[in-house]
């Protein structure tokens, strides 16, 4: 396979700690190895893209900043899109996080950092090699939206959409627009416009019972006057304001994370202030009452409408289908995947007696893949053979410290917290954690197969720590709860198999808690060191 490796010195941030030149020399067997000062600059980007065509690359590894760097804002996403347009499937792009998870936290340990950097690049190459290309489904977006809530932001968003000739459904739990917000008199004209518009439908006193689908094509089911209705729309704007009770009821349906106040959280308050992980769902965030509240809300509504319109005005939206089809030679239709899925994406075909997945409902969390006892289905973004191979590769890194730890990081919280830990370590020279802690990113806590922990022990790791979202904050609703069920039970199993159960730890974290990440990791490393000193044997 023709693979290109593009290393970034990150303007010295990486090369000060990691010997980038020596690192690059390990990969002469690849089709292309290039070292840039950064990956963001225009000339480097153009060079990278033309290299893909010139060398007919089938896969690339971007070694430098965190994978989150490319997914934290729209420009990063567009950069990845441009790589895809250049001919590389999204599943054939690998990332090696040499900055936030190597150079920053291990700044005093050049040897350890370089060894870890090599391991992470090896894993990224393995990922590009083993992952199959992801198929895309093209969807023509519906020219209609649902607005949940009747706050000022909701009414403004409705007005903007109606003006652009969109069909608008407003879903309210009350019997009328409450008008209790401060300065509502400023909204009177807007409210009148929306209420009298022929393309606006108000659904008062409704109870939303289900939300599914994907950007451009969602379905909302709701109950009203004892009847069940459903509406099909292209996008959803959630503008429930500070209503915590309603937020709590909607959260499992719309599958958007909430913050510590119990209100919907946007993807990144700095760079993506109204966006969620799903491009077809926008939030108009709540701000506690002050004189600027209304202005802020209207600005947010405008921003959300602009973002959503940009998507819904496209001719077609492509969706990745991240879960493979079921291998009919392996599926025995036991129903484990059906019962486990929080999004009701699986069902058993009664005639063929195999599990079938509905890609419109699937969120690609991988919980059903783990639940499947026959491995009849795989998660294409985190395939089973890749994860096993990655653990083996990480386990083979030279032992520079007395202990070696595998840190399995969930994409939503664990990985972000590890990145955040990097920034903290950069800022405070005393902080950091040992380079012998090797990260492995998984889609969700629900993707952690209990076999992987035992596999890690047999591959040379002294300890395994799984870092994932706190309870109630799992991006896939039940991923961390299901992981707990599996890991706690499996801990009992490995205890019976004569393995010290303290070698397996689970850490709950929120994406911004880099300090907690550093503290917990160091504590775990120290405890494992004591245990190794006490005669604990490595299993490999």
């Amino acid at each position, binding site marked *: 396979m023709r693979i290109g490796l593009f290393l970034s010195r990150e303007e010295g941030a990486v090369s000060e700690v990691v010997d980038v030149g020596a690192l690059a020399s390990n990969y002469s067997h690849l089709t292309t190895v290039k070292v840039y000062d950064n990956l963001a600059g225009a000339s480097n980007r153009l060079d990278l893209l033309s290299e893909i065509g010139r060398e007919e690359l089938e896969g690339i590894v971007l070694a430098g900043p965190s994978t989150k760097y490319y997914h934290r804002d729209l420009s990063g996403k567009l950069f990845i899109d441009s790589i895809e347009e250049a001919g590389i499937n999204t599943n054939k792009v690998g990332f090696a996080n040499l900055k936030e998870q190597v150079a920053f936290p291990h700044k005093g340990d050049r040897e350890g950092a370089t060894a870890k950097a090599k391991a992470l690049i090896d894993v990224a190459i393995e990922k590009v090699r083993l992952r199959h290309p992801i198929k895309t489904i093209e969807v023509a977006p519906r020219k209609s939206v649902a607005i949940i809530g009747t706050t000022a932001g909701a009414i403004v968003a409705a007005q903007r959409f109606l003006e652009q000739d969109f069909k608008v459904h407003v879903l309210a739990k009350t019997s009328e627009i409450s008008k209790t917000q401060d300065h509502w008199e400023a909204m009177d004209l807007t409210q009148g416009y929306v209420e009298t518009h022929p393309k606006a439908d108000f659904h008062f006193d409704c109870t939303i019972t289900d939300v599914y689908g994907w950007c451009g094509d969602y379905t909302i089911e709701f109950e009203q006057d004892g009847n069940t209705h459903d509406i099909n729309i292209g996008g959803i704007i959630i503008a429930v304001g500070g209503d915590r009770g309603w937020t709590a009821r909607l959260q499992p349906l719309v599958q958007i994370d909430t913050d510590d106040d119990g209100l919907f959280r946007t993807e990144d308050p700095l760079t993506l202030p109204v966006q969620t992980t799903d491009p077809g769902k926008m939030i108009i965030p709540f701000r506690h009452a002050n004189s600027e509240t209304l202005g802020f809300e209207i600005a947010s509504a405008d921003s959300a409408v602009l973002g959503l319109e940009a998507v819904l005005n496209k001719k077609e939206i492509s969706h990745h289908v991240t879960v493979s089809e079921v291998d009919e030679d*392996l599926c*025995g239709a*036991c129903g484990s995947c059906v019962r*486990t899925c929080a999004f009701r994406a699986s069902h058993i075909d009664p005639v063929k007696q195999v599990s079938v997945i509905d890609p419109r409902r699937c969120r690609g969390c991988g919980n059903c893949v783990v639940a499947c006892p026959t491995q*009849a289905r795989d998660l294409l973004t985190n395939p089973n053979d890749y994860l096993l191979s990655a653990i083996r590769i990480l386990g083979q890194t030279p032992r520079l410290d007395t202990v070696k730890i595998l840190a399995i990081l969930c994409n939503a919280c664990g990985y972000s917290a590890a990145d955040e830990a990097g920034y903290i370590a950069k800022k405070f020279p005393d902080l950091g954690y040992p380079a012998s802690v090797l990260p492995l990113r998984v889609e969700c806590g629900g993707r952690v197969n209990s076999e992987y922990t035992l*596999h890690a022990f*047999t591959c040379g790791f002294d300890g395994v720590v799984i870092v994932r979202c706190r309870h109630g904050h799992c991006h896939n609703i*039940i991923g961390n709860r299901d992981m707990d069920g599996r890991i706690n039970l499996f801990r009992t199993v490995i205890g019976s*198999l004569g393995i010290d159960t303290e070698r397996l730890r689970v850490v709950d974290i929120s994406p911004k808690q880099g300090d907690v990440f550093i503290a917990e990791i160091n504590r775990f490393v120290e405890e494992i060191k004591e245990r190794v000193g006490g005669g604990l044997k490595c299993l490999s």
Partner: protein
Amino acid sequence: MPKLDLAVVELQGCFGCHMALIGLFGNNRELFAATEIKYSLLNDVKEIPPVTMGIVEGAVGDTDHEEVLKELREKADILVALGTCAAFGGIPGMRNLFHVEDVLARCFVETESTHEGKMPAPPGVPALLQCVKPLSKVVSVDHIIPGCPPSEQLMNEVKALATGEELRLPTRNLCIECGREREDILVPKQQFLSDSIYAPPELQDIVGSTFLLPRRTMHDSLYSIFELDEIDSKRCFLEQAVLCMGPATREGCGARCLNVNIPCRGCMGPVPSALEQGAKMVNALATILPAGALMLMEDIVGTGYRYSLPISMRPCLVSEREDKQ
């Protein structure tokens, strides 16, 4: 047509697979006529002659087993591991959870019925290995036919092998063969199937053809019994809170136990893709049954790995490397 030469060897097993083999020949005169058993416990032959096919029952548990197996491998063109013990280590493999000295002490000294027992050490008795192993960890094996004992349907594969056909083991899990009705498990819900769980070792009394079970919930102490339930013989065990290994077990046995209202214990071993039968059970069931109650189970390894511990990632409590040190 020349007859097919067979050598049949018993290692650490229970003769159940031999009985199944005798059944196969008994029910199939043609096969009986087409084969010649050159070596078995019934032939008065001291040395294994060269044969076309060697069939082995039982796991490798002592030094003698290793020797016999290696000899058979040399003498046989095709080597077949017949039954779960030969294929995966099976029930004898459960002793891998203990040190071999402790196993012997328990057996010859500590058992309640033993009076003034002592450790056996007569000369010439083969030594127990620290770890019970499946055949494949000692020699190369051409085919495995799992089952405790293998079902008639799979025993017929021996016939297929004899005629040079390829062995085709089924690859799905047991649920596909089980005819019990399922309803709840096919409904996606963020709730457990039940609020309690029974493990197969807890099956207690049989009244008529119905099992009565002590109901234990997550909140109970280990042994408290406050309710007895009948098992519906038509309905999925998991939906009735009875732990059944079916989902994590290979199909091919014809769901014999399930048809007589006994939950699957996993004798067919893991499905081909599994690294660990026990881990697969944990992965699949921990999210749909109350895992907390499962953790109270006395013998979780004995449940998940009853037949397959020697082929798991941690096949032996005391690893062989430590053994040699």
